């Protein structure tokens, strides 16, 4: 088992390295214009240079802060909405079409509306992040609650728990792995929404820094920032996955 896992990991690393090496060769051979794509080694250099710049680090901090706040709000709202939908089957049936087609809706079109309502700055960006991130938590919470053994509900009643305590002490812990899976997904959605919002109208954040580099023809810096962002997201997802595996093992 461990041997198979090691082999899979080796194949994965080999595939990524092969892709990077091929891209390096193509760029070094001059097959692609440097204004269109730079070699991975150049991206890496640009990334290191960008990360040494305090202004860029501040942008990363701002973006990360917006993502964290959006994810936290989405988690709270998503869990509450999930509990409500699970407790009220009629409401759930009414919302099912919206839930099924939520991510097919052009939610980003709401961004100007949010700017009108919330003004410019971080608030509409966080609001967009929340709008994108909440549904994955709702879906995961409802799915998790569906799988809570019926006997746990009975135990809560025998212990004479209030509905709030039943949710807090029994239902949410019972489906914590599923909820955490939804929160992990919501981090990705929040990143997409926050970066895209920063692309459009913000005067700060890593999304704005990438667009600024693009507009001023700093191709290497742009790719360096994209690489840094990609590595940050991979790192966060990897941490979340490990944590989720841990709570799944504890709760299995």
């Amino acid at each position, binding site marked *: 088992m461990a041997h198979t896992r090691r082999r899979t990991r080796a194949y994965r690393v080999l595939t990524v390295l092969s892709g990077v090496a091929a891209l390096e060769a193509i760029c070094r051979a001059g097959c692609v214009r440097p204004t269109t794509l730079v070699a991975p080694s150049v991206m890496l250099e640009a990334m290191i240079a960008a990360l040494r710049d305090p202004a860029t680090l501040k942008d990363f901090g701002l973006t990360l802060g917006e993502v964290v706040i959006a994810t936290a709000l989405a988690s709270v709202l998503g869990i509450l909405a999930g509990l409500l939908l699970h407790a009220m089957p009629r409401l759930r049936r009414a919302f099912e079409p919206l839930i099924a087609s939520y991510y097919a809706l052009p939610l980003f079109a709401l961004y100007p509306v949010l700017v009108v309502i919330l003004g410019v700055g971080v608030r509409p960006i966080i609001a967009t992040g929340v709008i994108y991130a909440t549904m994955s938590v709702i879906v995961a919470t409802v799915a998790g609650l569906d799988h809570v*053994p*019926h*006997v*746990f509900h*009975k*135990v809560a*009643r*025998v*212990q*004479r*728990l209030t509905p709030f*305590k039943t949710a807090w*002490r*029994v239902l949410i*812990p*019972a489906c*914590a792995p599923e909820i955490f899976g939804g929160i992990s997904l919501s981090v990705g959605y929040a990143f997409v929404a926050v970066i895209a919002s920063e692309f459009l109208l913000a005067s700060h954040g890593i999304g704005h820094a990438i667009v600024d580099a693009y507009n001023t023809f700093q191709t290497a810096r742009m790719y360096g920032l994209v690489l840094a962002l990609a590595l940050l997201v991979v790192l966060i997802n990897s941490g979340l996955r490990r944590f989720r595996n841990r*709570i799944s093992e*504890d*709760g*299995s």
Partner: protein
Amino acid sequence: MRGVGRVFLAAAREPLWALRGVDLDIRSREFFAIIGPSGCGKSTLMDIIAGLLAPSEGEVIFEGKRVSGTVPDGIGVVFQEDASFPWLSVYDNVAFGLEEIGLERAEIDARVRYALEFMGLAAFARHHPPQLSGGMRQRVCIARTLVQRPRLILLDEPFAALDQQTRLLMGEELLRLWRETDATVILITHALDEAAMLADRVGVMSARPGHFIEVVATDWSRERDSTVVSDPRFGEVTARLWSLLRLESLRAMGRDFSAPSPP
């Protein structure tokens, strides 16, 4: 219980009476077992006694008060399914309900440690249920009920998923618990030998809609243990239970018990 009945209504179907006309008096400090054919409404009756389900007709009185739809103080329930919380340690599982009743930390600790010791789980206090066997997890659930010091303990086929040896040993522990706590115990089981060994009286239920067709007294002493199975009276009780249950089981299976058996 007086004239207890429970009907389940489903759209476009005939109303389904799970129980009808259930009359029974349980004495204080008694160990009472309930047996009956599959689907006769044993678990529904248990839910009604516990207050988890309201009867459609009739009434259940516990300590002079009518039980209906909410679990009264003084009743503890152990379910057939594994109801231990996998995210909590054994200690925290057992302490679960005590924090809700506002006991002090020292009192909670003393009660939990006693219950863990009593159920032979002291060495596993920091373990989590997935690390334990099925029998140990069921003991965690019994300990969680025990710490609340219920005056009536309801057990819904708590040993159904366990092997025969573990069931016998768990039965002995249950008898010890019953003797030492002075609680009244109602045990639902599908095992005739378990009912005959553990109970003071065994109520035999009919096929659906379930009601008691006979209550058989075992006349064991309060100090009994699993060795009563070698008592000649044990065979008589078990035979009597089976003779009553056989007809009801055939009826529950839709068989005409009066027809001659095929050659």
